[in-house]
């Protein structure tokens, strides 16, 4: 009875080491990675960073999205920052958008700051987030541009 007990506790404490799986939780600052091999049919929601190297058929919402070279996204992307090196068919909406040379974008880009490298393929319109917000009649989601507008209004 007693010996069995000690044996059991001994084995249990040994189990994590023997399992070889590193138990410590990763810091959530590390990006989630959709590997080049992976195909996702569905939506992704992430409050952190997302790196896509594979295929996604669905909508993506995240704080930061990187669409790597060779990646294919079919669906809309909404994030704070989006970096595109791969191909995307769908709308991109983010305050900061970067489009690399290797990118292929088929769809609209709604942005606040946009950088496009020479050689990138763009097929769609580029609109400012503010003009989109004004067009839809809703107030701008980010309060940042408001003081500037005020200044302009009082100046004129």
């Amino acid at each position, binding site marked *: 009875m007693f010996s069995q007990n000690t044996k059991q506790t001994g084995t249990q404490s040994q189990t994590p080491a023997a399992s*070889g799986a590193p138990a410590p939780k990763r810091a959530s600052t590390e990006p989630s*990675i959709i*590997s080049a091999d*992976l195909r996702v049919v569905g939506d992704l929601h992430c409050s952190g960073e997302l790196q896509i190297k594979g295929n996604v058929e669905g909508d993506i919402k995240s704080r930061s999205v990187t669409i790597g070279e060779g990646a294919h996204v079919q669906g809309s992307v909404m994030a704070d920052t989006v970096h595109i090196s791969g191909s995307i068919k769908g709308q991109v909406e983010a305050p900061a958008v970067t489009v690399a040379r290797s990118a292929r974008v088929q769809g609209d880009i709604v942005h606040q700051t946009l950088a496009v490298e020479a050689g990138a393929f763009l097929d769609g319109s580029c609109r400012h987030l503010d003009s989109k917000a004004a067009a839809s009649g809703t107030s701008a989601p980010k309060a940042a541009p408001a003081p500037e507008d005020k200044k302009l209004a009082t100046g004129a």
Partner: protein
Amino acid sequence: MFLNIGAVRDQVAGRAGTSIWPDSADDTYTIIHDDLVIVGDLSTDGHIEVSGRIEGTTNSRSVLVREDGWIEGEILADIAEIRGTVVGAVRATTVIIGSNARVHGSIFHNALTIEPGAQLEGRRPWRPHIDRNQKTA
């Protein structure tokens, strides 16, 4: 008779002919952190590591569901290691259930390791051959 779980696991891993998990820098290594939720199906010939949440079917060569991981849907794999929560059937040649795992669903396996403490609900039928690319009822 007392079973050394670590030894069993190593033996099981050896039989599967892999050095357990591939290198995380590998091109076929997918990581789903705890801040990511996927509502949809995943398929790959590589490895999936899940600390986040998946609502859908996963089909991969190998899958590791960490303590924080949550999968609501079917798991199809050659090797499945479950240390988190799975609500749905698991179909894998080699299945390893960790001590903190919770599995609500049947586990179809050819070789099954269960560490003490795991919460399992469902049948655990043995199957001589499991082909993850051929979905069976």
